[in-house]
């Protein structure tokens, strides 16, 4: 057996070019641009999403600036667009800023960085496959992101003139964004009709909104290709011995996410097409008759705006878990490794993820408690929503259980993972307030909600991602990231994050509504200005801290200390492959003998880890486990 398992000591001597299969010369473009290799695609996703993270962050700083200094000069953006107004932005520019911030962060950062970047990179490596089941589909799923990004740019009002001219000549006036940045999509990332359905309803409801919908469709197609691929790969391509319950939790989470996405996404895509049809073809799915906006002709047809909310949230609530579950899985992996201890309650972890996914489909109505849907439904949705806190709670307890008794390595990975758990607790608990319908009546659409979802999506998911980048970076590049810079980045981001978002709970309780360009002309909110200024300062600090991450990431690719196959002494299959793995991933086809979390096992002798590929003779096992 020993030939099958090159030991760690020998790992560095194995030339990763020497593996046996499918090795033929590829051109640069095939290798690094239109590559079908899951690792390259994963890294392409990672680079793209990191850039988009900076874009989304810049938009957020614009929002924060306005809240700290309403109607004063806004740096950069004010100069660019509103110089003759004294650099003061207009209200529709503000609405555009927060809309595009959410759009970019959700559709171009969080969903693709989890499923696209880490899903792609990790799934074949962790299950012992040489690539995805459908490599070309995989490549397409990345390249469909670019039309999406281009369409979002048009939705921002950044369509180049030649494009607008072309559409004019083709007679497609409805795709020409008139007014540039001021007319950028600004109906919230939720894009509720009628605001988003009637092009006369606001400056942003013109062509920009159509572009926005087209872009979301592209993102959807990309995600859908990914999720089909992930499901097939995980079901069919596991290495020998990799039973379902020997899969790392990362894989479980990716698997469940893929299922969620496959069932929820078509609804959004359909809804998006319906809205586009409403806008461009005169359908009236969401438009009731006789509505006059901006003195245009009254609308015809007998649609119902609430339908959009149902369809949208039927996707977008599961989407919240799509944005969270993979991070939960990855954090479980990282916590076990950094605490040198098996995950506490592996199966309950799996079941609770499945429960979250299942319940996730029947709670969408909690976004609509005040929307005017049948009030009796509110009761059902409330009970379901409150109950979804249960699996989340189980996971938190299990994470704490995992750390308990561990030999904790306080490195950047661990710190980010602990931040994940700590901040997810806040995000989860604040969720209970809004799950309770009567309380939600008050806090709905206030900053309490904003605080909640930033704690979940940024506090939890992004901190998980920061940890994951640091953790799997050696596998990506064969080098380590800088630990000191990583810690500084962590501390600045953690402090900046909490100072920015925790006070938002208080703003929400104080009744400050979201999406207000100027809350302070309501007397009861005037006194919140200093607090908002403090938060803006913290947000700017946090924003600039991300350059540390970016710099650390890019510089470490070239100058980081080199490392071997398994720098963390981790158990997963990916650590038995070379760093970085060559085409086809494994030099030795892996065979799996254990679950992924056999850290500090008595059978592993002096080592405190036991790789999944490492065979332990029966006798040795009996001695130590007493079976």
């Amino acid at each position: 057996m020993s030939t099958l398992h090159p030991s760690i000591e020998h790992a560095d001597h194995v030339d990763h070019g020497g593996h046996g299969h499918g090795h033929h010369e590829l051109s640069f473009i095939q290798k690094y641009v239109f590559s079908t290799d899951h690792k390259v695609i994963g890294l392409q996703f990672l680079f793209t999403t990191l850039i988009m993270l900076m874009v989304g962050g810049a938009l957020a700083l614009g929002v924060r600036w306005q809240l700290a200094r309403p109607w004063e000069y806004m740096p950069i953006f004010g100069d660019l667009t509103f110089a003759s107004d004294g650099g003061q932005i207009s209200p529709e520019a503000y609405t555009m800023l927060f809309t595009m911030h959410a759009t970019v962060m959700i559709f171009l950062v969080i969903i693709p960085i989890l499923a696209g970047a880490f899903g792609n990179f990790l799934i074949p490596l962790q299950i012992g496959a040489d690539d995805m089941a459908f490599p070309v589909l995989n490549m397409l799923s990345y390249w469909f992101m670019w039309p999406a990004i281009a369409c979002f740019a048009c939705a921002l009002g950044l369509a180049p003139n030649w494009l607008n001219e072309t559409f004019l000549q083709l007679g497609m006036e409805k795709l020409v964004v008139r007014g540039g940045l001021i007319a950028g999509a600004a109906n919230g990332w939720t894009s509720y009709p009628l605001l988003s359905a009637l092009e006369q309803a606001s400056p942003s409801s013109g062509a920009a909104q159509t572009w926005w919908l087209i872009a979301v469709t592209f993102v959807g197609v990309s995600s859908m290709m990914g999720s089909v691929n992930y499901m097939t790969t995980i079901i069919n391509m596991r290495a020998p011995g990799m039973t379902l319950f020997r899969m790392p939790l990362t894989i479980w989470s990716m698997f469940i996410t893929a299922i969620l996405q496959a069932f929820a996404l078509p609804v959004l895509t359909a809804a998006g097409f319906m809205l586009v049809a409403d806008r461009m073809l005169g359908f009236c799915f969401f438009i009731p008759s006789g509505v006059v906006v901006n003195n245009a002709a009254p609308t015809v047809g007998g649609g119902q705006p609430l339908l959009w909310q149902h369809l949208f949230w039927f996707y977008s609530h599961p989407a919240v878990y799509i944005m969270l579950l993979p991070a939960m899985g990855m954090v479980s992996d990282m916590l076990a490794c950094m605490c040198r201890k098996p995950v506490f309650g592996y199966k309950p972890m799996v079941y609770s993820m499945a429960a979250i996914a299942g319940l996730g489909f029947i709670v969408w109505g909690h976004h609509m408690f005040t929307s005017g849907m049948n009030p009796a439904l509110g009761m059902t949705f409330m009970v379901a929503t409150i109950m979804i806190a249960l699996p989340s709670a189980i996971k938190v307890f299990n994470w704490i259980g995992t750390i308990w008794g561990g030999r904790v390595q306080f490195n950047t990975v661990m710190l980010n993972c602990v931040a994940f758990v700590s901040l997810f607790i806040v995000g989860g608990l604040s969720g209970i307030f809004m799950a309770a319908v009567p309380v939600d009546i008050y806090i709905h659409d206030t900053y309490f909600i904003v605080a909640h979802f930033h704690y979940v999506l940024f506090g939890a998911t992004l901190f998980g991602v920061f940890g994951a980048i640091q953790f799997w970076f050696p596998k990506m590049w064969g080098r380590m990231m800088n630990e000191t810079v990583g810690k500084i980045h962590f501390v600045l981001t953690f402090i900046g994050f909490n100072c920015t978002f925790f006070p938002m709970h208080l703003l929400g309780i104080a009744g400050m509504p979201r999406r207000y360009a100027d809350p302070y002309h309501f007397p009861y909110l005037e006194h919140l200005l200093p607090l908002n200024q403090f938060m803006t300062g913290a947000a700017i600090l946090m924003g600039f801290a991300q350059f540390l991450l970016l710099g650390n990431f890019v510089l470490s690719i070239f100058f980081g200390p080199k490392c071997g196959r398994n720098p963390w002494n981790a158990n997963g299959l990916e650590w038995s492959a070379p760093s970085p793995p060559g085409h086809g991933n494994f030099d030795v086809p892996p065979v799996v003998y254990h679950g992924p979390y056999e850290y500090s096992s008595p059978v592993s002798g002096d080592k405190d880890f036991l790789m999944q590929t490492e065979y332990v003779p029966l006798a040795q096992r009996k001695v130590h486990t007493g079976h």
Partner: protein
Amino acid sequence: MMFRHSSNHRSVTTAPWQLVCGLALGIASGLAGCGTGPKAEFSYREATQKLIPVARKAIKDTLEDGFGTPHNLVAWERFPVAYGGAKASVVAAAEGVQPASKTISVSVEGDVSKLASGASVLWLTGTRAGEKAAADTVDTYDTKTKTLTWSGSAEPAPGVGDVLIVGFGHALQKGRAVYMKNCMHCHGVSGDGNGSTAQFLNPRPRDYRLGVFKFTSTLSAEKVSRDDLHRVVKYGIPGTYMPSFLLLGEEETKSVVEYVRWLAMRGEFEKRTDDDLGDFTEDSIVDTVKKSKTAFDAAKVAYDATLKAGDKDAVKPDAPIKLTDARKIATEAFAKFQASDLDQAVEDTASFLAEAWTRADDEASRIAPTVPRVADDAASRERGRLLYMSDKTKCYTCHGLLGKGNGAATEDFWKKPGTEELYPRRGLHDAWGNPLQPRNLTLGQYRGGRRPVDVFRRLYAGIKGTPMPGFGKTALKDEEIWDIVNFVMSLQYQSPQPAKTNAGGHVVATDMPEAK
């Protein structure tokens, strides 16, 4: 922590936090590398931009001299704008501690406890009177001793008994602050109705620069009164994007009304001065050259013909003017005009505007019905209907036979005023050149207000800047106007499908069950 229903001592402890916040923001601003940003600018009319450079410069200088820039307003006293400030008179004058500063004791009428440093001082009488308002600014004001210091020239020294206004222009500044926060995005920095949002709105936001406002209580030849503007700001204009600013606060509303009036005066001042300088445009120079060329060509043909005929005495026509020469001539002509007549023209315009805007607030300019509203009964409405359909009023040509705002006139092409050119679109247009829909009277939506007196005034004086004419005094007696008012206001309730309308608007809700 949860049971601490907030106690009575609120908002005391925010002060230290403000310090922390200010600090954080200061660091942040430093990080972002931001300064104060670009300065807001007043735009100029297209007509101004078309003038020859010297004329353009003269107009811009005059405007800047008289009105300043958005960040440095100039209060031109002769315009009837309540610039604000408190009247004071000098009790004693002394030299200041600093060189070139002055200290005077004054007695002030009104509240100046909030008098900030930098407030301007305007001298109404005495040796310093007649100087520009911006010349003196308050450095300090001691409320106890009522002592005022200012820097600036110490000569001529003020004498005891001189009357001055302190804080002159602060109402205008306040108005600007309110305007830049609430109005600018639609109405534009200069009140040209061309803010960043304006292009998306229908109807377009008002361009103040014609000095014309639609919904007024004044006679048709008069400007808008303060009360009218105040009302519009307070209650909005239903059916348009002008919302109600009911809760803006009385002082804010008043000051923004003054600012809007001031912007309107500035705009109209520019327009009238443009009109005075109509000969000095680039276009007219080109036109002159062209005409001269045509004349020359014609003369040349005649000359050639006469030469051919053998007439040796024929006078050779003068060469046509070259463009550069024409420009030079125009520039010289303007220099002459500037030296002799421009000041007078500016003076005339200013006094015309000052009088017109002063008159607008006179009781005599306000339309008041001479008889109470005629009883709103079937007979009155029927008389109103007949008048509506009569050739005396021709209401139906625009508002339609059923009052739906779809009369025959909305299907015609109309000429641009003062020209033979047609508008490219069918239907009526207003003085600003925007397409205009006659009101659908069946909606119960009254843009100028729903009081009977409002509708009466619309009929009496028309709607300014639109084809809606006034019938008061001449065509109709007040009683007849009331009949039409009664008829028009009943239309909302006679609709064949009354269920389809409501007061605030026109959402059809009948096909949905009531959500109970």
